[in-house]
Every structure is written in C-alpha cells, then in structure tokens.
C-alpha cells in the first residue's frame, strides 16, 4: 500500500476507545484512480465540538471531508483504505446504506444550493421524506430548524417565498436549516462561508457554537482566522510535493495549534509563510 513514513504530530493523544470519539480514523488512504491523494491519515473527531481542517489548496482536506459521509462514492474509480469509524461502526462496511449515512452526516457546501421551492418546503423536504405528514408537526420542525440556523427572524413572514429569492448568506443558512431538520449527528461544512456576506458569516459562526453540543461539526476552511475563531480542534493537511499524497501534518486543540504548534510546517502555514 503506502510507502509513506510520515508521522502526524498530535498535541492531544489519540484515543484507544473508538466509542469516545465521533469519528475514529486510522491509517486512511484515498485514491482517485491511480493517484494516491491521501495517505496515512489517523485522526479522532471528538463529539460536542467543532473541528476545523486547514491547509493550502489541493491539500486533500475536502477530499477527506467527503470520505466522512461517503460522498466520494459518487465519483467513479475512487478507492478508500484504512479505517473510518462513526461512533464505533465502520462506515465503509458492506451493510451500510450511504443514503442513511448521509442523513446522519449532513453536508453544507461552498455554494448555497437550496431547492427551487419555497423556504418552507426546503426545510420540510427531509422530514416529509422521513414520513412526517401532520402540518403542525412540520410547522414546528420548520420553525425550530430555522431558529437554530439563525434565519427565523428574517424569513418568518415570507416562508412561502422561493428559497432562491433570498440573499446568498440567507440561502446558506436555509441549507443549514434544511440539514438540521433531519436531526443529523454530524454536520460537515465545506468552505461554508467563502461565498457569502460578513453578517451571514457571523450568524453562521454563532449558530455553530450554539448547536455544537448536539451536532458534531467539522468545517473545512481556507480562512485561518475563522478556523481559529470557531473551532475547538484543528487539523492541518499538506501536500508537500505535487503528485505525492497529502498527509495530516498536525492535529490537536485549536488553542495549542495557534499558540504553540509542534511542527514547523504548521507554524509556517499559520503565520503565512507559505500556502
């Protein structure tokens, strides 16, 4: 398999019991065809916390994020090796239904992607699929999800307006409400704030802090300040040589990474010396 001799540095020791983690990742490998994109990734994602993945473009952080709810399954000729356990269970074992997995592990993308339907129907979409039919139950779910997404105040009077007719930042929060409506255990956010206005960014960061006790959050961000601000744990990915696989350089508490990183490459990256 991999010939890498890379050793990730950890400021907090890796757990031995997968059940205390949300994700328990060991020696993960990933291939696009013949290209080994990620190698030797071992990482714990802790519950009731926000974990940020940082690193320069092309360092594999989004690829790794998409491994976490098997979004990469949708890309032909990709291959995963190693272990990826969600609450102790292997998400790549044959019995796992990827659709059910993606219900448990919601995802937010860089570009807001609401359905071309009303705001109400966007949020009610998932619960309806799950069999919720009663109007009053749906009303409650829609209101609660929009509140948790920090959007309720702005849209409570225009719920029948098309989801595409509101601002980009509001659309992104609508997408978050849509994910929260199906009560996911994990929320994966892939650059959720890079295409939206600063006020919405602030609202998203606030809501992340508010919901993290119930939903484990993992965020990929190019904005190092955002990673530092919002996250409890940070993982730094790097592809040092083009064509070679990316590795996880360092992982640990955000306060440790941003005050006294262990690896010089982490220090160079966060102080803006490369990337």
């Amino acid at each position, binding site marked *: 398999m991999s010939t890498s001799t890379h050793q990730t540095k950890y400021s907090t020791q890796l757990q031995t019991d997968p059940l205390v983690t949300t994700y328990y990742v060991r020696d993960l490998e990933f291939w696009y065809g013949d290209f080994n994109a990620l190698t030797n990734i071992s990482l714990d994602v802790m519950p009731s916390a926000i974990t940020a993945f940082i690193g320069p473009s092309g360092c594999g952080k989004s690829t790794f994020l998409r491994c976490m709810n098997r979004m990469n399954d949708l890309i032909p000729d990709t291959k995963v090796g190693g272990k990826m356990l969600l609450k102790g269970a292997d998400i790549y074992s044959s019995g796992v239904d990827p659709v059910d997995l993606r219900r448990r592990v919601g995802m937010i993308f860089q570009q807001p992607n609401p359905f071309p339907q009303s705001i109400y129907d966007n949020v009610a979409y998932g619960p309806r699929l799950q069999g919720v039919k009663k109007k009053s139950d749906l009303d409650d779910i829609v209101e609660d999800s929009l509140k948790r997404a920090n959007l309720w105040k702005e849209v409570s009077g225009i719920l029948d307006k098309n989801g595409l007719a509101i601002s980009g930042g509001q659309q992104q929060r609508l997408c978050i409400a849509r994910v929260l409506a199906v009560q996911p255990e994990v929320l994966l956010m892939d650059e959720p704030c890079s295409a939206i206005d600063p006020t919405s960014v602030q609202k998203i960061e606030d809501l992340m802090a508010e919901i993290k006790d119930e939903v484990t959050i993992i965020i990929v961000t190019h904005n190092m300040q955002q990673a*530092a*601000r919002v996250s409890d744990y940070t993982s730094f990915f790097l592809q040092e040589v083009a064509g070679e696989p990316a590795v996880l350089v360092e992982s640990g508490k955000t306060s440790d990474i941003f005050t006294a990183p262990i690896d010089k490459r982490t220090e160079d990256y966060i102080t803006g010396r490369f990337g």
Partner: protein
Amino acid sequence: MREQFRSDMYEVQDDVVDIMRELLNTTKLAVNALIKGDEVLAQEIIDDDDRFDQLTLGVEDRVIELIATQFPVARDLRFLQSMAFIAMYQERMADYCTTIARAARRSANKEVPQTLVDLIKAQANLVYRVMDATREALEERDLELALKLPELDEPVDSLNKQFYRELGRLTDEEEMEAASKMVMSARALERIADYCIDTGERLSYFLTGERALLEAAEQDIETKVI
C-alpha cells in the same frame, strides 16, 4: 455578535477580580502574622505563593489563547493586553506578601517597638483600602475610581517615610534588627499599593484607549498635594 468570545473575556475579568480579592485577604494575613509574630501562619502564606503563580499564569495563558484564536482589535485587544499586564502585577503583589511573611517569620519572638507596630497597622489599613478600590474598579470597569487610586495611595507613601525616621531613633541593636524587618514590610506594602496604581493605569488605558489620561490625572493630584 461574537457571544462566546465576549463571555470568554468576562471570564478572564472574573479571574483577575478573584485574584485581587484573594490578594487582599493574603496581605491581611501576612500583616497579622507580622504583628502577632505567628510563624505558622507566615509559613502558610509563603507556601501559598505557588498557587498565585499558577493563577496569574492561567490568566496570561488564557489571554494569549484568545489573542491567537480570536484576533481581537480595538477595545477587545486593549482589554486582553491590560488583563495580561494586571496578572503580572498581581504575581508581583503576591511576591510582596511573601516578603512580609518572611519578615514575620524572622522577627517572630523578637521585641518590636510599639510605635513601629502602630505605624505598620496604620499603613496596612491604607493599603487595604487601595487594594479594595482596585478590585472594585476592575470588577465594575470603573474609570473614575481607577483614576482616584493615586490619591488613595498618597498617604501610604508619606507613612512609609515616617518609618525611616522612626528607625533612625532606635539605638538598641536587637530592637533595630526586628525594626528593620518592619521597615522591609512597610516597603513591601508600599510596593503593593504601587502595583494597584499600575493596575488602575492599565484599566484606564483599556477603557479610554489613551495613556495620557491617567498621567494627567496624576499630575493634577500632585499639584493639589503640593
């Protein structure tokens, strides 16, 4: 609103206020140990100094962490910088409590002239007042009170000078040795009060963004006194 960051900053302030409250308590204990010649109490205070080191270091670590992760600017930045400085002053104040406790340990069982005991009591009471006002200014973010600290400190300095005059009158060798420990303690008390003034200066900088303000206030006070 960055709610989490704001509540983190209030926690730092609470810690600094708590340390100030504990420092006042420890200063009182140290002075009592000195006056009563209580060696056991003196030793307890000396042993307690490590705890103050840990508490103040904890504040500094938290400040560094918040600066590194929250990118504070303007008022927030001034607040965090001020808290780090104030924690450093508090660490020194705790050291001066140890100085008094050491003097108490050495002068225990020795005859000390009553005039000096009375002087140290009077001075200590003034210092407690400065310390308590400092604590209140920190707790309430009270600029007016912070600016008043030099005024409260003024009599401390003049009492300190009186100590040296009293010391000069002594002739008995043994009495002089015990008395010199008292003078050392008086000097430590005076330094504690000075660090309270420095704390007020930092607080004023945080609240106003101007360093000149308290200097001007101090000058006013000096002219008044003259």
